[in-house]
Every structure is written in structure tokens, then in C-alpha cells.
């Protein structure tokens, strides 16, 4: 009798959970994972024979399982509780296998899904609740990046080209056994410097950051640098450009609430969750107006705001816009164009102190012809201001090359109609930014 009752009870639980699945609301997007959830697949002959149909159903069940977000958190807690953890422990977390399945995340982490495993193959280190990449770039790829800058310099006489590349967080892992990674970052960056032709300027961002290595330079839960780290890169740029950087005492300071960034999404590590980041901003005292354009063409421009209300990294220049024009109250006639990935967002805002007009191009999304843009708008300085993710992958370097050396796809100087976007700070592609 006991056996019968217990079998019945277990069956009831099984069927209960199955029923809950049918009754639960199906979602499109996972807020906690920042990705689109699998939907019921369409049956066609090709989806059947490729196996994609059945695989799609399995993914649908996994993604739409009742209380998925809560169970995900519980799953991480369980894995974390499988042993004893120490205050000073260093844990290497493997992330690549999971990412192969979720390409959208790879995009938000600055790399194409094809490059993801290359960039994150060393895994992530977690120390005191902060995550660090272990990759240090590639000295073999650095000359390819340097050649790109040389080619732009040759194609744009009269325009000064700058390399302003940030190291990866691996340079600042607070553990003796990983201290050598700072030197490896340096090798990668210096391999860029050593291959630049005369006239192309190299900003020693690593050197400047090294001088402030005890400060918070990178977020612990996110793959981006802090506003503080970006400020030191700005100082390095000023040194390379021969201009006086504006001291932070001349800027407005603001601290914003806690957030969990991309590396938490990636690892879902319990200790990382317990150490959320805060956003500390240094806002230049310069009046600005900015307009964002779509990936090609100048129609449907949208007004946006620097330092908008977002709590995470998306606040600097309204996330990652394909093309953004910032006009400042600094009437010195100088114009800059910044080629960037999202690391450049925190950096570009400091340039408003020195330029009347700044064009910010996100090479991952923009299809505007770069050479035409620079020539037509009389840009003086072309600044490659980004994290090393952009300079260490042949794929991303090719994307930057395509910006200038592929046939122009758009007509510049179209009549601009500006639509106010201040109320919608994370416009165009908010999902590509990871606050």
C-alpha cells in the first residue's frame, strides 16, 4: 500500500509540473539572461530533416519552463554550495560551452559569436566577487590592427589618426600568480605601437592605467571599464595629442545605484552577485547636444543625451548607437571621429572638453562610409578608442576596414530630421548594450 501511495504521489508531482508548464505564461525575452527565449519551432521538411524542429521543441521546453529565472538562480546557489569557499579564493570559470548556444550574449560582450571561444577560451577568473578575463590579446593580430590605422592615415591626409586601445581586465587581476598578464597585455599593445607608421599616434593607455592600478579601473560584474578607468585613458590620449586634460575636479561627480553587468550574466556566479557594481560618473561641464543615426543614412535621426538616466554602463552616450554626433559648446572648430566598441562610450564623453563636434562610430553596427564622413565633415582627428576586444580579432578589424574601404552605402549631407529621444535613452539597439 505504501508503495502504491508513494508511486501515485511521485506521478502526481511529475504531472503537476508538466501541467504548470502548459498553464504558465510564455515569455519572449529573459530579463535576467538578456536574451530572446526560444519559441515553438515551425515544422517544415528542412527543419524536420535537419533535426532543428525537435531540437527547437527541446529548447522551447527549457526556455519556457515555469519559474525559469528563479530556478536559474537556485541552480547557481546549489552549484556554489557544493563545497567550501574561502575569502581569498581564485576560481576559474569556464564560459565558452554555454555561450555557443546563446550567440546574442556574445554580441553584447564585444565579440562576434565566431570569435567568442577565442576571446573567452581562458575562462573567467573570479576573485573576491569580481570577474576578470584571462585573455591578453594576440601579438600576431596587433600588426593587422596597426596596418588598418596606417591605411586610414594614408587615405586621409591632414587627419591625425590615434590608437587609443584599452587593455583587458586581465592586466589588473589582484593575484600574484596572474601578475604577468599585465606584461602580456603590454606586449599586445606595444606590438600595435611598434607597427604604426610615423604620424599615427599611440596613446599609452596601459601605462596610464598602470600608474593608477590600485584604483577601480574595471567593473567586477561587467566586462567594461569604469568611468575612472576611461578617464585615465582620456589622459593618455591627451598626452599623445599634446593637449591639457581637464582635471576631474572641474567635472561634476555623480554616483548611481548598484547594478549587475554582463559578466554576472555570463557566469551567474553567486559571489559576483553579492558584489554588485556602482556607477561613478565624472561629467564634463560642457553643454552638449547629441543626435543618433541609424546604421545607414541620416534620416530618422534621434536626439539623445549624454549621461542619461540608465543605471548601468548604457548611460554614457545612450548605449551603442551605430553613429552619433555630439555637438559641444566648445567653439574651437576642431572635430573628432571616434571609432569604438562599447568601451569607447565611457571614453568619448571626456572628449567634449576639446572638440566642437564629435562623431562616434560603432564599427559593429554602422554602415556609414567612414572616409566620406570624415572628409565631408572636416574631421581633424580620427581616434580608434576602444577596448582590446576590437583590436585582437581579425573579424572585428575587418569590420573596421569595411567602414572605409568598402563602397559607400549612404549619401551624406541628407536633410536631418531630429526626433527627441531623451525620454528613450537606450534607443536603437538597447539589447546590445549590457548595463
Amino acid at each position, binding site marked *: 500500500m*505504501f*508503495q*502504491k501511495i*508513494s*508511486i501515485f*504521489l*511521485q*506521478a502526481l*508531482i*511529475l*504531472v503537476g*509540473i*508538466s501541467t504548470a*508548464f502548459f498553464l504558465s505564461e510564455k515569455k519572449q525575452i529573459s530579463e535576467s539572461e538578456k536574451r530572446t527565449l526560444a519559441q515553438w519551432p515551425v515544422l517544415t521538411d528542412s527543419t*524536420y*530533416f*535537419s*533535426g532543428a*524542429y*525537435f531540437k527547437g*521543441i*527541446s529548447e522551447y*521546453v*527549457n526556455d519556457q*519552463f515555469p519559474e*525559469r529565472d528563479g*530556478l*536559474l538562480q*537556485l*541552480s*547557481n546557489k*546549489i*552549484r556554489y*554550495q*557544493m*563545497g*567550501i*569557499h*574561502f575569502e581569498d*579564493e*581564485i*576560481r*576559474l570559470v*569556464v564560459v565558452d*560551452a*554555454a555561450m*555557443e*548556444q546563446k550567440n546574442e550574449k556574445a554580441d553584447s560582450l564585444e565579440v562576434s559569436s565566431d570569435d567568442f571561444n577565442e576571446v573567452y*577560451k*581562458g*575562462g573567467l577568473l573570479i576573485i573576491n566577487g569580481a570577474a576578470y578575463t584571462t585573455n591578453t590579446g594576440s601579438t600576431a593580430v596587433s600588426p593587422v590592427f596597426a596596418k588598418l590605422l596606417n591605411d586610414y592615415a594614408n587615405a586621409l591626409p591632414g587627419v591625425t589618426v590615434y590608437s587609443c586601445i584599452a587593455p583587458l581586465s586581465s592586466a589588473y587581476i589582484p*593575484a600574484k*600568480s596572474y601578475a604577468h598578464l599585465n606584461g602580456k597585455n603590454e606586449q599586445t599593445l606595444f606590438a600595435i605601437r611598434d607597427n604604426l607608421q610615423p604620424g599615427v599616434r599611440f596613446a599609452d593607455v596601459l601605462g596610464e592605467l598602470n600608474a593608477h592600478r590600485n584604483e577601480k579601473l574595471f567593473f567586477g560584474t561587467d566586462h567594461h571599464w569604469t568611468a575612472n578607468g576611461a578617464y585615465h585613458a582620456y589622459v593618455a590620449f591627451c598626452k599623445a595629442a599634446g593637449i591639457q586634460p581637464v582635471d576631474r575636479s572641474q567635472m561634476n561627480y555623480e554616483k548611481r545605484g548598484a547594478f549587475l553587468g554582463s559578466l554576472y550574466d555570463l557566469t*551567474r556566479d553567486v559571489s559576483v552577485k553579492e558584489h554588485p557594481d556602482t556607477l561613478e560618473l565624472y561629467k564634463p561641464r560642457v553643454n552638449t547636444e547629441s543626435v543618433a543615426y541609424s546604421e545607414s543614412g541620416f534620416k530618422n535621426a534621434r536626439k539623445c543625451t549624454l549621461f542619461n538616466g540608465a543605471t548601468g554602463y548604457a548611460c554614457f552616450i545612450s548605449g551603442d548607437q551605430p553613429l552619433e554626433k555630439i555637438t559641444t559648446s566648445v567653439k574651437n572648430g576642431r572635430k573628432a571621429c571616434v571609432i569604438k566598441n562599447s568601451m569607447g562610450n565611457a571614453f568619448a564623453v571626456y572628449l567634449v572638453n576639446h572638440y566642437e563636434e564629435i562623431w562616434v562610430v560603432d564599427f559593429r553596427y554602422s554602415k556609414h562610409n567612414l572616409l566620406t564622413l570624415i572628409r565631408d565633415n572636416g574631421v581633424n582627428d580620427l581616434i580608434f578608442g576602444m577596448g582590446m576586444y576590437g583590436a585582437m580579432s581579425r573579424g572585428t578589424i575587418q569590420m573596421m576596414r569595411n567602414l572605409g574601404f568598402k563602397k559607400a552605402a549612404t549619401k551624406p549631407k541628407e536633410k536631418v530630421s531630429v526626433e527627441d529621444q531623451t525620454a528613450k535613452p537606450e534607443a536603437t539597439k538597447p539589447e546590445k548594450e549590457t548595463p
Partner: protein
Amino acid sequence: MVFSSLIFIYFFLPVSLLGYFLIPSMKGKNFILLIFSLLFYAWGEPIWITLLLFSSVVNYFMALFISNHRGSASSKVALMVSICINIGLLMTFKYADFFVDNTNWLFGTAFTKPGITLPLGISFYTFLSLSYTLDVHRGHISVQKSFLNFMVYVTMFPHLVAGPIVRYSEIQETINNRKTSWNQAWSGINRFCLGLFKKVVIANTASILVEKYLEIQFTNLSSPEAWFGITLFSIQIYFDFSGYSDMAIGLGRIFGFNFLENFKHPYAATSVGDFYKRWHMSLGRFFRDYVYIPLGGNRKFQLRNIFIVWLLTGFWHGASWNFVLWGAFFGCCMIFEKLLEKVLKVTPRILKHSYTLILIVFSRAIFYYVDFEKLKTFVKTLFSSDYPVSMNLKNDLFGYLFFFITVILLCIPWNEIFKEEHKVYKRASQFYFYGAPVINILLLLLGTILLIDDTYNPFIYFRF
């Protein structure tokens, strides 16, 4: 489809059980079982299901022919045809690329590799079919006349894709007529939940660490970390495969079948020979009955026979030289054990157990690294490395302490230490009887929670 997936646990299994138990007739039950088995297979192999059907039809008719012409020359011919077709299918779909590769390497030719993806479970269902026709020919079993029942035997989803290699003699009574008792269903559920725990909690967790040590840190491993990594792989492969077998045996019981055991606490073995009496026992039984004994067994050329069986066992695992090397390694170990039989008899048990474990863990490296260069580097690292032990080792030993304790507890053969009449055994059995429902529900929920976060993580033996 894999057993350790949410779709299987919460949808496929309840629906198939409902269909099965709602239908009163045995014919109807077998029909339902066949339909769900084909769906189960098509889920992962929508194209190669045709191969499974072809193989089954051929073997069904060949066995019928052999049975109807028993003792005649045509019966032998039919047997040979059946063997050739089964082995031919295996050679074509599993080993074609391997043969082309080696021909090109040996003769400098440039034949194009067919590039056939390995059909799921082909190594298992061809061996199962082979054993059936051979046993019919030998007269050990009576032929199954019902095509439906024969198809159920071959394609039954509990054992279809990764064994155990069920012999027809094990189920010939139940395939025609069976009734699931409450006791049988109860023990089947318990076994399935245990298997789910082994796979999802132990094997999948170990796989994360295995990737970390044997792949990501491969180039800067210290020797202790290399041993740690390969030990973890030994844990992974055992819990992965025995977990699958537990689930298969458990499901079989729920449907009224009694499959023989496939594992018997292999890491408690005291010799390499003993180990393989405890590991993947259904494959061992196959090679013993159809290769070892026909070659002469213990009676003549025993050492040669052992070596051949092990080479074949290695080759069965995969179309790669590392598996052949792995088989040869075990063949040599077995031969040495035979030669040193007298010495081993007087060797203390603890020493025998230790050397066996070291050899088994070491052999996993040959099994893991398909690339010989990597294997060479790794073996060197096992014995000397320029790298110091990193913090990872200490952090993972402690960070997964409860995991390792659970692994050790599950590897100990408690039923061999405390026999049935022992009071500890009796008390534990009593506790388990009343505690099982709660334990099962907890294991099911734990498995579900961990599966939510898991990407597709198939069983290791799916690729063999």
C-alpha cells in the same frame, strides 16, 4: 532525445507511460512502446531512423530464415549474410572516414572522406541484433516470430541509444507477456531517479571541471593538476554511463522488463581483470560469448585471445587510433596480470586496489585525447611539469568538497561490504524503503533545477 532532459522527464515519459498503461492488451502495449521508441530515436536522428528500420527488418527475416533452416548450409549462409550486413553497416557508418584517412596516409592516395555523421546508437543496436541472430543460429533462443515484438526488442527506447546491450535471452519471456508489479515499478522509479542524480549532479558537474583542467589549462598544467583533471574525467565517464544505465534499467522495470546490470562498482576493483567484470558488463559479455570463447577462450592461446578481445573492445569505442591504443593498453595489463597471477594472489588488497585505480585513471587519458600530440604532452605532464600547482587545485578541492564526498560514497560497494543479513544493511534498506519517495522527489527537483541551467549535455557513450 536524452533521458536527462526536461522534455523527456516531464512530457515524453508521462505521455508514453500513460499510453502504455491505459492499453490493456500486450499487443497494444508493445505497439505503443514501439511508436514512442521510434519517436524517441527520431528526435535525435530524423534521417538515420531509416537505417535502424533497415537493420531491424534484415535481422528479423534473417533470423526467421536461420530458424526455419536450422542445421542446413543455407542457414549458415544466412548467418554470414546477417553478420556481413551488420558489420558492414557499422564499418560504413562508423569507420568509413577512419579507413579512408588511413588508406590515404598509408598509400599516399587522396580519396575523399565520405563524412558520414555517426548514426546515434549504431554500435549498440548492431551488436544487439548480431547477438540475436547468433543466438538463434546456436539454438540458444527461439526465434521471435512477431515482427512487432522483434522491433520492440531492438528499438525499445530505454536501451536503444546507449545500451546496455540487452540479450534476447534476458527478455524473451517478458517481450511476449509481462505485467509490471507495483514493486517492480517502485524499484524502477528509484533506479531512474538515482541515475538522473548521477548524470545531472555528478557527471555534468565533473564535466565543467574536466573542461577546465584538460582543455582550458592544458598548456600550463602542473602534474598534480593533470592527475586531478584525469581523475575527474574518470568520475565523469563512470557517473555519466552508469547513470544512463541506471535510468535505462529503471525505465525497463517500469515497463515490466528486467535488464541485467551493466556496472558493479568498478572503482572498487582489485585488478584490471576485475575492473572489466564490473564495467560495461553487457559489452564484456558480448565479446566473451561471441569472440573470446570462439577463439579458444581459456583453453588455447588465452593471452592472444585476451589481446584480440581488447583490441576489438577499444576499436568498438570509436574510429580512432587512440581507442585502439587504449584497448591494447588494457590487453597488455590483462596479460601481465595473467603472467603475475601468483604474485598478485599474495599482494595485499590495498596495494592491488591502488595499482588498479592508477592504471584505470591513467588509461582515461588515452581515452580522452584523440589527438596523439596532445596525449603525448599530457602523459609527460602527468609525470613532470614546469608549472607549479596553481590555486585552482586547492580552490576546486574545497569548492567541490561535498561533491567529492558524494562521489566517494557512491563508488564504495556498500552491498559488498554489508551483506544482506548484516544489520546495517537491514536498517539501511528499511530507511530507504520509507525514505525513497522523499529522496526521489528531492532528486527529481534537484535534477530539474540543474537541467534548467544546462546546455545540451548528451551522454558520453552516445558518440560510441
